[in-house]
């Protein structure tokens, strides 16, 4: 085989993976709009999406299901992309925004804006609080692990930051002035897409998109990091600027996502891990693939929670943790030899 045919082969497989993932995401997006307490047919839904008739179907589709589906897709894309970027940067398949404390701290940030009344005062406080929480978490984890931090120290630092953020959120819950405030705070702890409106979409989506752009710009430096930090530097990569992009990009999009949907764990861990072999392990291709895969998985999980128990809806974050935690355990068992 010549170099060119091989390169062609390496390029077509990831391209096919992208097409399949896009189709899957689109199908699940439609599925998310179709599934809910009131049974709607596909023509009804399409009709409601394409017109602005003020009937019940139109209201349900446009004001309840559509924002939920859009948020599910965008938040899933955020978690998948951020997971892939963090794994590439740390060269560690166990990294994800939840495990390194970003999600819990973003939830804490959002809870604080709600608790202090800032969120009621101006709406943007919510995503800004989430992003601030995420930034602080990333900085602390970086300080705890230092430059040459291995997998174990990273996970330990992540656990420490996560636990502390969760403890502070619990404290807010504990001191909640009334049961309704407590319920609101619980929302961020569990993570859910239920009852989200277009207001939430407009609050979070611009920040998520900004974070995506920042993270997607790291594709080439992440490839270079395959050879380690020293070699990447001699290949012309500015490591300090790369680290800043990864940290800020993750904090912006995960912070914004968490502030409107709470902490949804394990999507960012599972998706890049499953997709990596399908894109020939190339960190750059894994970024967009994990975006699509994250969107598809989150939409699928959000459809599942609605189907499994329609009356007393399971929280999305609870489901992803129930499925994701055993997956993480298997990963750790597989990597145990490498880590110890």
């Amino acid at each position, binding site marked *: 085989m010549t170099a060119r045919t091989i390169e062609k082969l390496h390029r077509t497989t990831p391209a096919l993976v992208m097409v399949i993932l896009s189709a899957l995401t689109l199908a699940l997006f439609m599925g998310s709009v179709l599934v809910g307490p009131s049974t709607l047919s596909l023509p009804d839904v399409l009709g409601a999406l394409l017109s602005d008739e003020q009937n019940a179907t139109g209201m349900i589709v446009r004001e309840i299901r559509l924002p939920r589906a859009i948020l599910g897709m965008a938040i899933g894309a955020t978690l998948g992309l951020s997971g892939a970027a963090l794994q590439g940067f740390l060269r560690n398949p166990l990294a994800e925004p939840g495990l390194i404390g970003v999600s819990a701290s973003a939830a804490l940030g959002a809870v604080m804006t709600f608790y202090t009344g800032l969120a009621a005062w101006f709406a943007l406080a919510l995503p800004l609080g989430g992003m601030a929480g995420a930034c602080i978490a990333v900085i602390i984890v970086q300080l705890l692990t230092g430059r040459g931090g291995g997998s174990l120290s990273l996970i330990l630092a992540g656990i420490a930051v996560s636990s502390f953020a969760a403890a502070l959120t619990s404290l807010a819950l504990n001191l909640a002035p009334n049961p309704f405030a407590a319920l609101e705070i619980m929302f961020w702890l569990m993570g859910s897409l239920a009852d989200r409106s277009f207001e939430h979409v407009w609050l979070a989506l611009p920040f998520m998109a900004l974070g995506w752009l920042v993270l997607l710009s790291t594709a080439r430096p992440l490839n270079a990091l395959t050879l380690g930090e020293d070699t990447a530097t*001699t290949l012309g990569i500015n490591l300090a600027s790369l680290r800043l992009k990864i940290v800020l990009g993750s904090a912006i999009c995960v912070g914004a996502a968490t502030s409107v949907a709470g902490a949804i764990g394990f999507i960012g861990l599972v998706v890049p891990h499953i997709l990596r072999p399908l894109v020939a392990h*190339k960190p750059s291709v894994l970024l967009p693939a994990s975006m699509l895969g994250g969107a598809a998985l989150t939409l699928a999980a959000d459809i599942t929670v609605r189907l499994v128990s329609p009356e007393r809806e399971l929280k999305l974050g609870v489901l992803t943790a129930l499925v994701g935690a055993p997956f993480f355990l298997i990963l750790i068992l597989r990597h145990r030899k490498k880590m110890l």
Partner: protein
Amino acid sequence: MINLVAKNVSVSLGNTLVLSGVNFEVNTNEVVGLIGPNGAGKTTLLRVLAGLLKPSTGTLHLAGRPENDFDRRARARMIAYLPQDGESHWPVSVQTLVMLGRLAHIGPMRAPSKADHTAVFQALETCDADQFIDRPVNELSGGERARVLLARAIASAPQVLLADEPVSGLDPAHQLDVMNTLCELSEQGTATVVVMHDLSLAARFCHRLVLLFDGRAEASGPPDLVLSNENLARCYGINARHGRVDDVPYIIPLNRISSGTEDESI
């Protein structure tokens, strides 16, 4: 004519002076061997030359200009660095890995050009590794991986190649292959610096040797002068036997000189 010149370079790591006042120079068509006992500062000097470590004092000139005249990418196109025990963190294909060597040649948001593919294939051929091109790097043996990583370093067509112990951990046949490759590259114009522990290979393949000891350049010049019995005794603490077979020099370490004469006087 390209050269990389370090003048009066000192490096402190913490409170330890790792390099003190080292002068070093490598020119086109030259293979310079960097030798010395463990901890002498060989890797540190190589990292300074590669721009990975800022020296506390001293200057670095590339092609007659101060090295900070060059931006990251320009520098990356001129100097290639092959670290010791290089590894690939992801099991990407050999093609993908070697293409990373072309990174500074490929414009932002551009795909690799025909020239890049040709350079990758030629680098693999030079290192006798073209048959692995579609294999994942994690499935290669140690010797195969070393050749692929060398191909990565030379795929950028560097004017200066800095290699840290490229032959350690290789069997004798592959050691000869790698050293021959480095010599061929130098004949084509590359200025090569290679850190080595094998004194026989150093004597045979390097045009010039620099002997580092305790952070200082103790000796520098043609191999037979630098590898004198006196230098070997002082820096390595060994007695060695020199010889030649068919004009190929060899050095056999005979025994360790016990440190200090006090031991014997007791």
